[in-house]
């Protein structure tokens, strides 16, 4: 029994909590970009927080229920309707067989999560059904006509507490960073925490590319221009290539890299980083 994709929108991917412990295979974690919103959607329909759900980028998804299903939408508040009737965000929604759920473009935020009670039952690759866009692992992006098998809902005995939704729509997003490991490669690493940055349209699940909105603000200039011998990269790392345009790594980041990392965004602030849209202004504040 399935959920049929009538229209995928700009980008709809299957994501769970990602691949753990495959660094020795050269495989990164991947998984939902906004982990809080993903877990919340699953918990709202009674799934385990790491169940497979749909990560919808900038709305546009339309799906038809082929049987009675319970779904929930979290993350970026894409206006939704069920057969034309407005559907609420961030709550469990019942669908009967044949009904169509449509998501429009959210006004704030970037990624919405659609969870289905029972989870989406696709075969895992290396322990996860997440699509890793960089390593080309896991299922292909959703396409028109895809029929997604849905698992049997599990009776919930003890429902875990919901964590607060990721705050969205601030005019300027503030992200906390810890400097290092390679802040000593820059003439003035504090340029990172000076003034505002802006999200470039060339951003994706690998990373958020950052520009200076105001060219008079200080650039991140490197003291040394050689490549670093390849070293491990973490989620949230802010890597600076010779161009000086930083990249903030998200879920599908490379496992190793050869450009210096000036600072790393705190783990608790990654979900907000993953919801920033192109053009969004942001600033960094030092946590250490």
């Amino acid at each position: 029994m399935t959920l049929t994709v009538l229209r995928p929108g700009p980008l709809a991917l299957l994501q769970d909590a990602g691949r753990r412990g495959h660094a020795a295979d050269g495989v990164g974690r991947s998984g939902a970009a906004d982990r809080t919103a993903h877990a919340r959607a699953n918990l709202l329909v009674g799934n385990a927080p790491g169940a497979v759900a749909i990560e919808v980028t900038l709305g546009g998804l339309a799906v038809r229920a082929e049987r009675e299903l319970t779904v929930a939408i979290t993350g970026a508040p894409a206006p939704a309707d069920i057969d034309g009737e407005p559907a609420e965000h961030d709550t469990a929604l019942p669908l009967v067989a044949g009904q169509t759920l449509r998501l429009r473009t959210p006004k704030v935020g970037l990624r919405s999560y659609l969870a289905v009670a029972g989870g989406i039952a696709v075969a895992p690759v290396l322990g996860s059904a997440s699509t890793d866009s960089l390593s080309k692992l896991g299922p292909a992006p959703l396409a028109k006509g895809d029929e997604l098998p849905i698992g049997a809902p599990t009776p919930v005995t003890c429902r875990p507490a919901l964590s607060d939704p990721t705050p969205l729509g601030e005019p300027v997003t503030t992200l906390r960073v810890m400097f290092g490991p390679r802040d000593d490669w820059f003439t003035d690493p504090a340029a990172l925490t000076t003034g505002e940055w802006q999200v470039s349209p060339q951003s994706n699940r690998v990373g958020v590319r950052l520009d200076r909105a105001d060219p008079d603000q200080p650039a991140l200039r490197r003291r040394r221009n050689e490549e670093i011998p390849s070293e491990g990269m973490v989620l949230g790392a802010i890597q600076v290539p010779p161009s000086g345009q930083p990249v903030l790594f998200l879920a599908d980041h490379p496992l190793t890299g050869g450009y210096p990392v000036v600072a790393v965004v705190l783990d608790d602030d990654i979900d907000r980083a993953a919801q920033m849209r192109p053009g969004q202004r942001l600033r960094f504040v030092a946590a250490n």
Partner: protein
Amino acid sequence: MITGAGGRAWSVRPAGDRAVLLETGDPATSVAVSEAIQLAGSTEIEDLVPAAATVLVRVVKGTDLTEFGRRLLDLAGSAGSADGDTAAHDELVIPVTYDGPDLADVADATGLTRAQVIAAHTGTTWRAAFVGFAPGFAYLVGGEERLTVPRRSQSRPRVPAGSVALAGTYSAVYPRESPGGWQLIGSTDASLWDETADPPAAIQPGRWVRFVATGLAGAA
């Protein structure tokens, strides 16, 4: 910086609130230290990424990084370097047809004949220092110094799976088709990536590898 048991200087750098970066200085030491860390079996470790001169250690939420970094330095100091590693080991033997499109360029760049390039590449046992760049892509160290070559000035949009390559002091086999800028000296039919196998990557960090020449291509 803290001096380890071997009289060697180690240091730990911060890498956010969930990881630390241990500087090892060279790839062989990264392998030795990673093995020692794994053997110690700390429950707070989520993932280890050994690399050219560092080991990145990612830990579970709530770990006290200062205290963890101190323990890591103790462990690293007792692991020492891999230089003295003389224990018996299994080699993965990879049959190679030395027919790569860059074999002539590598011969030019190194001042060797093609036959000498092949002899040098097959003449030493290599060891996987770390993986990265792509799933199953292992950076092999332990080659002859005269095989050191730069990357190609232009990278290729598509390098076929099984391509045997050189760049810097490293050798590697492309496990899947991908873009790539390394010098391609040969190819193998050996399967080095199988996402249904456990582990999926045939060459893991620390694995010993020997190349043997097959066929006649490039033998002259």
